[in-house]
């Protein structure tokens, strides 16, 4: 059934810390390794050792340079942004599916593809603005992040290992897993504390995953940085009285 289930109180998802992510791609590699052999695998590649290797990965790590105007002049900050399925609360990838292969689990909100029902029309990949779904030409079906549903409930694993492979592999602990529907869970508290945000909320699909923005610089040099925070726009330096303008300039130095 591709009609969405009633919203569940439990919303399993990831929180990704853009402050500590170093862009090492360990999450992407660990994900590929687990899911190639896990319950939802294999994840075959095309031309894996040739000149143009190509294949399905559930996790892609983008690296950006963010140019900021600070009080100390222009500065570039590197931000690594891992991109994977956000397990949206109202995902269009599920409702557009003509076969019922794409579905959202009613009890924990994980979005999955039933490989036995998927006809490979790829409409769900078109419907997802986050690029969470990649089609396997080898298998003829759509593939996506499973939130390692074959690990997180796997009682043959040590309880410490019952988390997604990407979370377990991250060397800087930039990835956190938990229930974002429970305001008292550790990751919900983390999101509240660090002002975690959702990617492109304007589409209205209500992503569950949250991203934690880079922390402000310890030396305070972000003050005056280009930003959407009201602090900046509220202060019109030209309207300050002479003494304060001098003070502002001195402090901004």
């Amino acid at each position, binding site marked *: *059934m*591709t*009609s969405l289930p009633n919203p569940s109180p439990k919303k399993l998802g990831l929180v990704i810390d853009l402050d500590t992510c170093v*862009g090492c*791609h360990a999450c*992407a590699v660990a994900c590929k390794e687990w899911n190639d052999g896990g319950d939802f695998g294999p994840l075959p590649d095309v031309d894996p050792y040739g000149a*143009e290797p*190509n294949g*399905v*990965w559930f996790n*892609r*790590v*983008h*690296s*950006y*340079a*963010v*140019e*900021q*105007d600070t009080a100390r002049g222009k500065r570039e*900050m590197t*931000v690594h*942004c891992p*991109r994977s399925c956000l397990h949206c609360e109202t995902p*269009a990838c599920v*409702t*557009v*599916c*003509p*076969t*019922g292969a794409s579905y959202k689990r009613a009890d924990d909100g994980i979005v999955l593809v039933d490989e036995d*029902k*998927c*006809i*490979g*029309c*790829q*409409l769900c*990949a*078109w*419907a*997802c*603005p986050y*690029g969470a779904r*990649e*089609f396997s*030409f080898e298998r*003829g*079906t*759509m593939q996506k992040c499973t939130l390692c549903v074959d690990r997180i409930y796997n009682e043959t694993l040590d309880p410490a290992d019952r988390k997604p492979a990407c979370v377990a592999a991250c060397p800087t602990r930039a990835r956190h897993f938990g229930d974002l529907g429970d305001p008292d869970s550790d990751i919900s508290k983390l999101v509240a504390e660090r002002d975690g945000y959702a*990617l*492109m909320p304007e*589409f*209205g699909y209500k992503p569950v995953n949250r991203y934690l*923005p*880079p922390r402000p610089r310890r030396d305070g040099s972000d003050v005056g*940085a*280009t*930003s*959407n925070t009201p602090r900046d726009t509220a202060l019109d330096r030209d309207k300050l009285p002479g003494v304060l303008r001098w003070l502002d300039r001195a402090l901004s130095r």
Partner: protein
Amino acid sequence: MRPTFSIIFFTVASGTGYGIWFLLGLGLAVYWPTCAAPGPKGPEGVSLRLCTYPLLIDYMLAAGFVLVTTGLLSSLGHLGKPRRAWRALSQWRSSWLSREGVAALLTYLPAIGVVLPTITGWWQTRTLSPTDAFTPWFSFEALRPIGVALALGALVTVYCTAHIYSSLKPIRAWHNRYVTPAYLLFALYGGLLWLWALSTLPSGFIAVATRTFETHATHAALAITAAACALLKFFYWRDIDRTPPISAGRATGLDALGTVRTFEQPHTEENYLTHEMGFVLARAHSRRLRAIALLSAFLAPALIAGAAALLPFASNILAWPALAFGMLGLLVERWLFFAEAKHAVIGYYQH
């Protein structure tokens, strides 16, 4: 979005086929019952009429059937698992693709409803008199509801096809108010092109007499619809040119911190997303291709229809180049519809 031939052919061919069936359904519901010459009463007491241009019904049924069916089969070629295609009929509650499949299959029913009396001679005057045996007669009361069902089925199917695209918010060139009217109007336009060509075949209205009301009406309808299509496309292009692409800063939410540019891509080779959704060829040549689409799809057939209106005796020859230009132009237009559309995910890959 990468223009895949199977889908371009599907939307153009099936759209046109449904356009022909829409016109046929409309004809069976409105035109044939009123234009047919009154006749005697049949043995069952149903009043029968001599059918005008009976073969045109067969031509339109057959052309529609070939176009709709090859289009639908072509769309299966896009699937990773075509043998499971039947599963696509199950999720009509939420999915426009599923609704389209259901509507497409249901529309075959009234089409068969028209075929059956034609091939079984059900509407022919078998028992009126021996000399009338091969004259097609028309029991319009019976065919009116079938015509209405055929026209409605065609309309609903094309509406569903259009909504598959216009409901996809991440592709802003598709999630656009002009997309659904354009699909419907282009289907009607393709149907009119075929109607003109088919009516030049033996026992079609142009083949019988070129100075008929039907001939003039076809020329006029074609020219007017072509102008409406071209206007719609013009406004559509103006609209999509005004929507800026999604930047990396907006896609990641990092624009709150400053100006974002890509420092390193996540992979060195192409992947499914960049291959399928990062198509750039069309944008380099879009002006020229848009001009070709407008000229070939709409302007050329409209001018040819104008020429045919002035030179009615040439209408039976002019119909065919108009059809060729029109269909080729519609294929270019549909290619551009895909090639010019940009997917939101490409924002993450933006430099």
